[in-house]
């Protein structure tokens, strides 16, 4: 069947429809997503509809997160004891809070910063090698790397806690974690 149109071929109508769709996105959806990104303290918003998807990401330097952290997970130190829940609570602004950095992928662990390093939220503290592609493990909060759990070359799973960050003392006004 040599004359049969292939799925990749697009008619003029389809192309026109796509251009109209892109125009609509630029006029209406993108500003709305940017507003939502600002108000929700998210690093990134992605939406899917039909054949397309659209991702809006906050520019580097802002309070960016590669992936949402998981406050529901207990923060476990290597000894197995849970960190005190109060330490992570903004209700007690005087105490430093601790948060775990988690692996964004399943793969081989490559540390890049030693314990004691100062980090800002979003900084790379390690990488996970996924079939030759390094995927960043980022600090969830501003603070100091207390401990990195896996050794270089260890296998880590998705969502595994790989490092513990102790946050800077919060300002006295108890500003929310961005």
């Amino acid at each position, binding site marked *: 069947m040599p004359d049969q149109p*292939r799925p990749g*071929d697009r008619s003029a109508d389809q192309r026109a429809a796509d251009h109209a769709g892109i125009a609509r996105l630029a006029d209406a959806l993108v500003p709305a997503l940017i507003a939502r990104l600002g108000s929700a303290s998210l690093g990134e918003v992605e939406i899917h509809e*039909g*054949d397309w998807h659209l991702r809006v990401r906050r520019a580097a330097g802002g309070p960016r997160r590669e992936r949402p952290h998981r406050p529901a997970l207990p923060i476990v130190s290597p000894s197995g004891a849970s960190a005190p829940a109060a330490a992570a609570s903004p209700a007690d602004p005087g105490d430093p809070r601790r948060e775990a950095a988690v692996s964004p992928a399943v793969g081989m662990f490559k540390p890049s910063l030693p314990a004691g390093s100062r980090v800002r939220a979003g900084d790379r503290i390690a990488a996970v090698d996924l*079939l030759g592609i390094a995927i960043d493990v980022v600090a969830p909060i501003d603070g100091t790397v207390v401990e990195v759990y896996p050794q270089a070359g260890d296998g880590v799973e998705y969502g595994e806690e790989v490092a513990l960050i102790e946050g800077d003392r919060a300002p006295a006004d108890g500003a929310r974690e961005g």
Partner: protein
Amino acid sequence: MVSRILIANRGEIALRVLRACRTLGIEAVVAYSEADRASLPALLADEAICIGPADAKRSYLSAPAIISAALVTGCDAVHPGYGFLSEDDAFADAVRAHGLTFIGPSSHVLERFASKEEVRRLLAAHGLPTIPGSGLLGDEAQALEEAERVGYPVLIKPSAGGGGKGMRMVRSARELAAVLPICRSEARAAFGDDSLYLERWLEENRHVEVQVAVDRYGHGVHLWERDCSIQRRHQKILEESPSPAMSPAGRRELAERAVKAVVAAGYENVGTLEFLVDADGNAYFIEINCRIQVEHPVTEMLTGIDLVATQIRIAAGEPLGFAQEDVPQEGHAIEFRINAEDPEHDFRPGAGTIERLNAPGGPFVRFDSHAYTGYDVPPFYDSLLGKLIVWGPTREAAIARGKAALSELVVEGVTTNVAIHQALLTSEPFLQGKFTTNLLDRVGAAAFLTAAERA
């Protein structure tokens, strides 16, 4: 040699593969998504590793995540189960490129059998009758043209997958235009490939499939047929063997033709050839499934052959080790798919905590399920909770055993389709073995249940 397998799937099939590994003395690592952390296969595995979030695209459909998990856990093989990446030749090739054994046909065999539309032509050339159909569909106008040529009613089918996803029967051009985008998006979501084709729809048909096993050395056997005509919206819910619709001679002839054709076409490993059988007993090949199937236990009950173990041994390069005359078809077996869905409300899938689960038992009763009392059924995946399989020396005995076993099965906390199975086992068309694939859809499941209650 295979000594440690990564099971890249979930639910009951992950547990089934785990059990095969145990009997073969092979270590099993279960790759799971965050939503399946507490499922039985993840809990029972020698090792379990989280490969991604609940979203299957980033876990069970992520080839890099699965291969990376296999490498960091020291596996030498990957079992893909069914669905997800099980028939993806690019995945099989990537697995091999990383020095791992893919438990299934090799990538070049999968590639040859990847397009359902092309396979129909390939096996037709090797002597199997097929149903009129189209090539791959392009845009809407071209799809409408093809449908005219094939003749309404037509069935829209995804070229890449099975399980009823992305499949719709349409009777007119208007209907076709309306559902084409839906089928495309369903196919893309389920298989990562939205190519579709058309097949002429036979109104009164039965769905009969032949199980085959072919080793790498071209030695193949069939393991008889399964009748999967009890469906709702193109999804099988009850399977049995032998098929009540076919004579012993007809069954043997179909099975022999099927295995001969696939061996000639160069197939390898376990696979299933699906046929539609019309009212006169003519069988038309529709598609091949290059993987283990949900309903494989039916065949295991009749033949005594462990199909998953056979699949692993063939992939490891072993010869089949048995001949056609070593494959009996003894007695009658029925499988009931137990789904977390509500037959009274259009089979709406359910999720939630299983407050109580009691599995049926007794002789010749098998219950394959990843669920347990306290298990949370996640809302992200298909609704299959488990499979109840019964065997008896005759169809009547198997039906009686099925009734007894279904009455023992207790699932509390989520709605299941058990009532549909109970209704089937008292319905005249089923008892007489005279039913076609539209038995449930013709009257609607709710009406079918009501009628069974009155009888």
